[in-house]
């Protein structure tokens, strides 16, 4: 390990990591429960279309919903059991959305689906993309963007670099960390498949220095296969610990010192960025026929009795997962899905774990009390924190005044909503929250204009 050569991006913040409770805990399997809920929209894009009826028996790994469009993906049953309802259910975001509810068969063996390895070399480019969509893969870092969309390259576009994201810069979360320590082989296998399919010339795995055992495990696995993945050179790049390094644009800047131009994608620079979890899930599908029906979830936070890293079937109710971890402290006031910086606050525990759920964190009253708010004194800490080099202080002021259109001129739409500004503000101003309000108002306004024009 060579910390001297470790790179990072400019600006950003250094929140306390809070990872010590779970970073050394091996992954456990979450036991099966009685009931699973699969919202049809648990990925970015169009909701999936159900292909089962209420009352129908389903096997673990069986397709229960087909993609509802190109930017959409497949849903599989996480258990063997019976479809008990096709009805609206609570989504973690608070809305009622159409969902498939499945009752587990208590007598089923719950064997994983017996899939044949798929000869991915024989597939055409479009067939490979379709295969990834059939696996139900989404970005495992939290955004849950359907993975196959990223692998569909426009005509004539080449991928030079495959960037694999092992930063896990959100405090408390250790799921990716444990995956890198426990299954480096699966990650490399996924890399081998994807690098070959995309024709990438180089693979870089970015890992922050606070995970030395993960770097070691990846290096060891890499040494075991000669330092490359199917002939493509792979390198593990240690990165200085900083938030939000796991954001796609920040990771690219940290690794290569280049900025993805505003409005462009990494693809435009010949790069694809994928989470380590997505790589392992890719390997599971092509080698074992295992679709995305379970994922690693870190359960932690001051209000959890027994913090853990769990392999949880998608659709498991949050309440069951927390019960499995010894239940919640009576003082808990906030349960967050995802990380503490960008996660979703849960309105109820009766919502399911989704494909994009990287963590379940329970915070007590003292941790979530709203800070006393003072006037902005223009101290500039938000400006120094913002990885997009925006002026969050001014954006917050404009948002408070309802001057949303003016905010566009201050590049409000470049905001990645990482929350670094709110974290850094000594006056306790909810800066990123104010910017989010403005962004969604601007988006709605654009849609209205479009509708009026067309």
């Amino acid at each position, binding site marked *: 390990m060579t910390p001297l050569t470790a790179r990072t991006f400019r600006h950003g913040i250094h929140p306390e990591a809070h990872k010590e409770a779970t970073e050394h805990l091996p992954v456990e399997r979450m036991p099966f429960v009685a009931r699973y809920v699969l919202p049809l929209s648990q990925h970015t894009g169009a909701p999936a279309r159900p292909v089962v009826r209420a009352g129908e028996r389903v096997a673990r790994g069986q397709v229960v919903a087909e993609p509802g469009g190109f930017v959409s993906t497949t849903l599989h049953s996480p258990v063997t059991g019976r479809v008990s309802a096709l009805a609206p259910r609570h989504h973690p975001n608070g809305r009622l959305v159409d969902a498939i509810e499945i009752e587990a068969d208590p007598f089923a063996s719950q064997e994983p689906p017996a899939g044949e390895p798929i000869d991915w070399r024989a597939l055409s480019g479009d067939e490979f993309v379709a295969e990834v969509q059939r696996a139900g893969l989404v970005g495992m870092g939290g955004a849950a963007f359907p993975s196959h969309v990223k692998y569909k390259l426009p005509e004539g576009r080449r991928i030079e670099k495959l960037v694999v994201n092992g930063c896990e810069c959100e405090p408390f979360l250790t799921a990716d960390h444990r995956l890198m320590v426990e299954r480096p082989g699966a990650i490399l296998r996924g890399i081998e498949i994807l690098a070959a399919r995309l024709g990438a010339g180089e693979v870089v795995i970015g890992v922050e220095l606070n995970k030395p055992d993960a770097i070691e495990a990846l290096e060891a696995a890499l040494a075991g296969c000669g330092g490359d993945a199917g002939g493509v050179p792979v390198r593990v790049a240690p990165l200085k610990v900083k938030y939000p390094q796991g954001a796609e644009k920040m990771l690219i800047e940290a690794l290569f010192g280049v900025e993805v131009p505003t409005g462009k994608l990494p693809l435009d620079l010949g790069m694809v960025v994928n989470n380590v979890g997505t790589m392992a899930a890719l390997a599971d599908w092509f080698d074992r026929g295992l679709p995305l029906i379970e994922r690693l979830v870190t359960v932690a936070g001051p209000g959890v009795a027994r913090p853990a890293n769990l392999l949880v079937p998608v659709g498991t109710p949050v309440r069951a997962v927390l*019960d499995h971890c010894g239940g919640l402290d009576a003082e808990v006031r906030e349960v967050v899905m995802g990380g503490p910086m960008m996660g979703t606050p849960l309105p109820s525990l009766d919502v399911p774990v989704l494909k994009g759920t990287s963590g379940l964190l329970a915070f007590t009253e003292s941790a979530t009390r709203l800070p006393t708010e003072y006037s902005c004194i223009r101290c500039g800490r938000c400006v120094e924190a913002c*990885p997009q080099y925006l002026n969050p202080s001014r954006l917050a002021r404009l948002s408070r005044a309802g001057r949303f259109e003016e905010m566009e001129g201050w590049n409000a739409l470049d905001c990645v909503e990482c929350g670094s500004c709110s974290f850094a503000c*000594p006056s306790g101003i909810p800066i990123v929250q104010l910017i989010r309000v403005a962004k969604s108002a601007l988006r709605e306004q654009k849609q209205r204009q479009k509708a009026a024009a067309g």
Partner: protein
Amino acid sequence: MSARAPRLVVQSAPFLRQGVTTPALMRDVLIALVPVTAAAFWYFGVGALLVVAAATAGAAGAEWLLGPRREGGRRGASLADGSGWLTGVLLGLTLPPGLPLWMAFLGGVAGVGLGKLVWGGLGHNLFNPALVGRAFLQAAFPIAVTTWAPPGGPGMVLASNFAWPLMAAPAAPDAMTAATPLNLMKFGGEVTALADLVRGDVAGSAGETSALVIALAGLWLMARRAFDWRIPVAVVGSVAALAAAIHAMAPASYPTPWFMVCSGGLLFGAVFMATDPVTSPLAPRAVWLFGLGIGVLVVLIRLWGGLPEGVMYAILLMNAAGPLLERAAQPRAFGHTRSGA
């Protein structure tokens, strides 16, 4: 144990915050002012402390009387942010130690009232409130504000401190008035020894004389990241560079850069006044220009202006220019080209 339904509240991410608060930032500056105030006491005695206390009482009183109310209607909601107290202490330290206390009090009221609250309170004012208070006093009582006493030790209290409002000050014995090093330089061509300037054993405003103590307090604040380090660096650097160039051209008629930096209110202004985050720009390039502008104005006023000292007006003028600089020197956003695209 089961996860019983806890009373969940739904707030929006992020759920973590760093520990520093705005009152803590203000407190840091007040702590840094403790040694400066101690130096004022050492050289100018109890009288200097009384002036600081009177200015602070005026500032805090104005904050209480004219500032926003608490929930429920009680006065003094904004006293807790610490900025009103800080304005008072800063103002007191820039006043002559023999100033009548009622004037210092009035300066505090004007600083917070006209310098901050009429603009909408903390964070909304264009000009540094302490300097607005001082400029008010300079305009209202030009003689009293430029009557200096030589350092007299910790026991020093001047009769002039206790003058009644709007009455003529008790006539100060001639022995008790003195000229500041800048006065001596400007009107007498006399240069004060650098060692005296560094220690602070010269006539001047209560808290501005000891270059050493102010510099150390500034370094401590810089280490705590309490302000933008670029501001004092730009102010002191530009004054030193410009003064060095002018001194090199005519060493006989213009003072050395050391004298320029260590005399008058330059260091106090650079460390405690220009760095006020509310009234200085945010964008780094604008900050450099802001500091440079202050430095150039100080040198121009001191060497060729009608007044012996120009730090206050230099900072106030650049306060006014701040928003313009900010607009002109916005940093490039990530993924954009410099010209904006």
